C-alpha cells in the first residue's frame, strides 16, 4: 500500500476510538505544519554556514561580500563576492562571483561569475554580442572560458560528492536575466537524489561537510578566473569595453 493510502487509513481508522482518531489527525497536522518550518530552517542554516565559511576563508579575505538575505518563498538569495577594485563609481561591482539560491524551496544553487547589470562592463551576453565586442574583451573572455572549462574542478572536489558531475556553462541564453551571467554551474539535489536525501545528508554529515563542497567549487572558480576578471575590469576602466 502506498504511504498516502496507509496514512489516511491510519488517521481515519474506525477500529480505534473517535478520540484517538482526533489525536492522530491533529498530530499529523502539527507535523505537516512543523516540517515546513524545520526544512526552511535547515536550508537557511546551510546557506548561513556557507556564507560564514566564505567570509572566514583566507582565499576571500580581501574580498567584499554583499548578502541580500534569504526569505521564505521563491525569491533568490544573491550573494555577491568581489574585490574593491572591481567596483563601479556607485560602489557596486561591475563583475562578481555569485552564489544564488535559484529555488530556495528545494535549495538548488547557482555558483558563477555575474555582471551587476546587463549593460556593464559590456552589453548583453558575449555570444549574442560577439561581433560588437572589442577584440580585447573577446580575447580575455575566451581565455577565461578556456581556463575554466579545462580547470578540472571536479577532480579537486573529489569522488565522495553526491552532486551531479557537470560542466561549467557559459553565457549563451538570450534572456535578459541570463545576460548577466558570464559563467555558472547549477547544483540541484534532483540530479543525484530526492530532496529528502538532501536533508538526510545534512543530518548524517553535518552542515560543515555539506557546505565545504560549495566552498571548494567557489575556490576553484576563483583560482581559475580571477586574473581574467581583473583584466576585464582594467580594460573597462581604460574605456575599452564599450560595444563597437
Amino acid at each position, binding site marked *: 500500500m502506498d*504511504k498516502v493510502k496507509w*496514512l489516511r487509513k491510519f488517521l481515519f481508522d474506525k477500529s480505534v476510538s*473517535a478520540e484517538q*482518531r482526533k489525536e492522530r*489527525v491533529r498530530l499529523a497536522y*502539527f*507535523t*505537516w505544519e512543523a516540517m515546513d518550518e524545520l526544512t526552511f530552517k535547515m536550508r537557511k542554516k546551510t546557506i548561513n554556514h556557507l556564507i560564514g565559511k566564505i567570509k572566514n576563508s583566507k582565499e576571500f579575505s580581501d574580498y567584499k561580500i554583499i548578502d541580500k538575505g534569504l526569505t521564505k518563498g521563491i525569491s533568490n538569495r544573491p550573494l555577491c563576492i568581489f574585490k574593491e577594485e572591481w567596483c563601479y563609481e556607485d560602489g557596486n561591482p561591475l563583475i562578481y562571483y555569485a552564489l544564488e539560491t535559484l529555488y530556495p524551496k528545494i535549495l538548488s544553487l547557482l555558483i558563477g561569475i555575474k555582471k551587476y547589470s546587463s549593460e556593464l562592463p559590456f552589453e548583453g551576453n558575449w555570444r549574442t554580442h560577439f561581433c560588437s565586442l572589442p577584440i580585447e574583451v573577446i580575447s580575455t573572455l575566451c581565455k577565461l572560458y578556456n581556463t575554466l572549462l579545462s580547470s578540472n574542478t571536479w577532480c579537486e572536489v573529489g569522488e565522495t560528492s553526491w552532486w551531479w558531475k557537470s560542466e561549467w556553462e557559459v553565457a549563451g541564453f538570450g534572456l535578459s536575466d541570463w545576460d548577466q551571467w558570464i559563467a555558472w554551474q547549477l547544483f540541484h539535489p534532483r540530479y543525484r537524489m530526492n530532496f529528502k536525501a538532501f536533508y538526510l545528508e545534512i*543530518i548524517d554529515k553535518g552542515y560543515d561537510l555539506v557546505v565545504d563542497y560549495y566552498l571548494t567549487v567557489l575556490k576553484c572558480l576563483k583560482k581559475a578566473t580571477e586574473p581574467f576578471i581583473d583584466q576585464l575590469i582594467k580594460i573597462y576602466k581604460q574605456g575599452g569595453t564599450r560595444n563597437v
Partner: protein
Amino acid sequence: MYEAIIEEFIFGERLSDKEKEARFDIAWDIWKSFDIIKSDLEAEIISSIYKAAKESNEFIDYVVLQDVEQKTIWIYKPEWAIEVKIPILSYAITLTGIKHCSILIGLRKYREELPFTGSLKEKKLPQDIKTSMDELFDSLFRKKQYSYITQLQHDWIAVNEFFLDDLFYGNLAEKGIEEVLEQWISEIVDLKRATERAVDKFIMACIDNTNCSW
C-alpha cells in the same frame, strides 16, 4: 509550540544520527502524505457541501452551481440573474488559501464589476438601492456572526470565515465529514433565511436602475 516539540522529537540532543535520520524520514513521509490527504479532503468538503445544498429543500427554488476550479459553490434565485447563470448577488461558499485553508461563507458578487465595481459601502448609489442595501446590511447585522463586512475583497458583501486548522481536521476524524459539514450547511441556510427578502429588494432596485448612471 508544536513545532518545538516536533523539532525536539526529530533532532533531540540525546539521539544518535541514525535515530535522527529515521525520525526525520517518518516526519517527512507524514508531511508529504498529509499534504495530499489534506487536498483530497478539501475537494471532498466542497463536493459534499455542493451535494447537500443541491439536495436541500431549503434551496429548492435556487440555482446551485459548483465552480471546481475556483473551489466555490454559488446559490442564487434565477430571478437574481441578469443573464442566464450570471446573478447580481449570490450566496457563496469558497475554499481559500494555499497552505492554510479556510472556508468563506457569505453573500458575494458573482462578478466583481456587477452591479458596480468596488465595495458596496464605498460606492455612492441611487437612493432606492442605498435603502435596500441598508436593509440588507440590517438583516446581516442581526446575525451576530456577520458583524464584519469585509473591506479586503470587494466582491464579498458579507463574509464569515472558518479556519481549516488542526481542530477542524481532528473533528473531521472524530465525527466524520457529514456531521462537521452540517454546521456550514446550517450557516448558509440561516444566512439565506435572514437575508433572502432584503436581497430580493436589492436586486429589484438594481434592475430598476440598470439604465441609470451610478
